[in-house]
């Protein structure tokens, strides 16, 4: 099991809602997204699959290239693929801001 942490200080647009999506089942993960308490965005990941830190960072970099909300993100992961991770993140964004479209 591995704990990963990433910071995105330039994601500063305030958000007000929180969202929980997904299940820590095989090949899936849960994400808790809520307003950041310290400004900027913080990501904390607990994954049962070791050795994929670079992939996680690539997915998160890509997500925060399109999304600028100041959120705290906590992920419990049971082996979600990068595609599933991105879908879960977008699903959470959709819940905290239904009208907000992530920049394509």
């Amino acid at each position: 099991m591995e704990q990963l942490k990433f910071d995105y200080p330039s994601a500063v647009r305030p958000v007000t809602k929180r969202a929980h999506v997904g299940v820590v089942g095989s090949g899936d993960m849960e994400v808790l997204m809520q307003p950041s308490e310290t400004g900027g965005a913080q990501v904390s990941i607990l994954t049962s699959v070791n050795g994929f830190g670079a992939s996680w960072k690539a997915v998160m970099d890509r997500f925060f290239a399109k999304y600028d909300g100041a959120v705290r993100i906590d992920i419990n992961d049971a082996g979600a693929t990068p595609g599933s991770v991105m879908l879960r993140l977008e699903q959470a964004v959709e819940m905290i801001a239904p009208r907000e479209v992530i920049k394509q």
Partner: protein
Amino acid sequence: MSSAIVIPAYVRRHSFIELDARARAQSLMDPGSWRELVGPFDRIESPWLPMQGIAPQSDDGCVVLKGTIAGKPAVLIALEGKFQAGSMGEVSGAKMTAALDLATQDSQNGKKTAAVLLLETGGVRLQEANLGLAVIAEVMASILALREHAPVITVIAGTVGCFGGMSIAAGLSSYIVMTVEARLGLNGPEVIEQESGIEEFDSSDKALIWAINGGEQRVGMGVADELVLDDAEKIAASVQKYVRAGLPQVPRSQQVELYRERTAALDTSRQIDPLTLRKSWNRKTNQGGAR
């Protein structure tokens, strides 16, 4: 040229099995009546799983909603079958027990509060060993306390089913609702095969397993009360019916003499087939249940 498009009911229906535990729970409460207790943002996770290299879940696979069903006070406790096979750990068990005990307290104070259990579980969470066993014992004690005051309704929708110690908890509840896809049994098929050999029980033979553990057989035998389709509205209607019904005259698990007689009357000199068992045990309700 135009022709009406007919969409059959089995396509239009809203599958219950496809929902996760939280969505299942929400679909059974009166809309707008509920709130979640000890939800994911409270982050009460299993402290034991990370020590064993397993990612925990922020609700420990147990969703507790408080609100009303059919206008009556109710608490709904749903296990998430996709997280660690819905297994009972220290945290999920404590949530279930506490919710049942609060319902008992409210009931004793004049506010009869029914409980609905959505059980998708293989039983004890092996990684939490004795703590898991202990919470299952506590859950059983809490069900026995509450069922004196208000109905405890177990729904087994599938596809995990309900096995191990939690199948006993299901057996203690006032009513059991099952789908055709659901299974209910003390030992899981693979456990029986592992312990007693493939001649005893072939766990790869799905037709055999469903003929013995499946919802149709369990309702046919009279050890569960209603067979429903995998349809969120139909399951909600069934739960509402039992919330309104109140307490059964005699809980199934107190009908000791009846089950002793039934067991004694079985002819064990030959292999008993599921249909014969259904007929000899429960002539009254052997009409295919809700189907």
